[in-house]
């Protein structure tokens, strides 16, 4: 099997140690870090996304694959910087104020990272003010908000309003998601996009940025 295909397969299987070993071997052989990223990691995570969408993989297996992906990324990072490889775009993510759930957000972050995006993760219980400060600090193209509860999802609206009041609304696209969230709700609160699951979130982000699917 072509070694890059093998790397993609090992990522998909969540074989963290073997992924790390093979990543280093490929670098030692002179394979470029962007090639390893695209044909190894992104390819592997694309399969993970498809399997998740098809109900063949669930959260535990996806987390395993993510762990393998991160193991490789940690090795690749300095090489990617040296090669001048840039992430596709920068995305800011957080679970809104009052909400302590992060699995959904983390899953979206994993899939976006697997698609080549840089993620700035603000964590849980993020106030509108903290979102605003982070937009000013990091200059993302997309702000992703997650909420797991019907009570906390209303803070997505509050946050969008705060971003607008801070004069930043035209600088970012906002995407929302989470168990109680819907397209209807997203439209009502003035978000730019909604995704039902982590795989669709990647598609939606690419669409919002005018990138090929």
């Amino acid at each position, binding site marked *: 099997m072509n070694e890059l295909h093998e790397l993609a397969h090992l990522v998909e299987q969540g074989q963290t140690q073997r992924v790390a070993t093979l990543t280093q071997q490929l670098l030692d052989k002179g394979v470029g870090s962007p090639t390893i990223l695209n044909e190894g990691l992104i390819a592997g995570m694309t399969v993970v996304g498809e399997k998740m969408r098809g109900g063949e993989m*669930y959260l535990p297996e996806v987390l395993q694959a993510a762990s393998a992906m991160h193991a490789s990324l940690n090795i690749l990072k300095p090489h990617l910087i040296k090669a001048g490889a840039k992430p596709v775009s920068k995305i800011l993510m957080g679970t809104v104020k009052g*909400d302590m759930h*992060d*699995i959904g957000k983390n899953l979206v972050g994993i899939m976006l990272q697997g698609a080549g995006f840089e993620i700035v993760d603000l964590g849980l*219980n993020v106030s509108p003010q903290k979102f605003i400060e982070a937009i000013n600090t990091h200059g993302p193209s997309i702000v992703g908000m997650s909420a797991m509860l019907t009570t906390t999802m209303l803070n997505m609206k509050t946050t969008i309003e705060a971003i607008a009041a801070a004069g930043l609304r035209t600088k970012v696209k906002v995407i929302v998601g989470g168990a109680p969230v819907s397209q209807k709700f997203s439209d009502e609160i003035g978000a730019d996009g909604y995704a039902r699951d982590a795989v669709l979130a990647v598609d939606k982000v690419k669409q919002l940025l005018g990138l090929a699917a």
Partner: protein
Amino acid sequence: MNKRLEQALTCEGSDRVPFLPAIYEHKAWFVGETPSRVCRDVGLFTTAVFAEYERVQPDALTVGIDVYNVEAEAVGCRVTYYGGDDTSIPAIAPEDAVFQGSEDVASLRMPDPRRDGRMPLTLEVARNVMKVLGREVPIRGAVSGPFSMAAHLVGPEHLFMLTVTHPHLVKDLIAFSAEVIKRYGRAFIDLGCSVVIFDSQASPELLSPQMYRDIVLAPTQGVVRYFQQCGVPHVPLIIGGNTTKILDSYLETEANNILCDAKADAGQFLEKCSKARRAFRRNLDSADFLQTTPEELHRHTLKSLEESQGYAGFILGTGVVPYGTPLAQLTAIREATREYQRG
């Protein structure tokens, strides 16, 4: 005593479809307080339950506000409470888990419901409510399910990773959690209450149906059977999300009054629950409650009731009612259940 729910549970048929809105943190709204304050004050909590009953008139009451936190807190997890006017729901952040994964599960403290955390407080609320309403309406104590409790003990994402890397450790954690839950639930039952088990972390939105069967089903059955042996013949089990994929396992838990959430396939629930003579609660999607009109909710409720095809074991419920939901929304739903005539 309002027998409507019991009649649904035995599929006997009642005068109308029972109405069970999921009111937890919203209880605090009835007394003009925050969930953080109410869940830590016996007087406020008791008054809130009474107010809920008076104003909403549900066919059963649940003693619980932040229903997933009490057991884990009693073991040692830190709950984040909110001060001032903040109406956020108390929660356990993943970093406040009490078990890291490398130690022995036996090192975890087994809490005493009479002494530890907020267990004594919620039991006292249950006692107060039973004294006044116990002969009038079913009162249920809220307990966690074993998988959801284990998720708090070690952190949800960590638990999901461990199901692959350390499955034996996960089984031990779930077994420990089941023991805690049995003791807490028993304390409610000794007061004359029933219990209701909440285990939404085990939803197939997160955990595969095979994993549910392999690691969650047997311990859950064990908890259900224990409560049955303690004198609760019908033990509700609430797993949120689209649980259609685990419906067979869900029925195998032997719980009665299982949840068909808004996104789940009501047709399949109707077919399988009818065959098994089991009651199920069909939820209206509460995500709309703060945006929609009472008239629209009334219409949605009637549509949902029509889907029941007159099944005697059908219960009308809601997703978790958001804090601050206007009473008119819940009244509209309740009135629709009163208008609906089973075919």
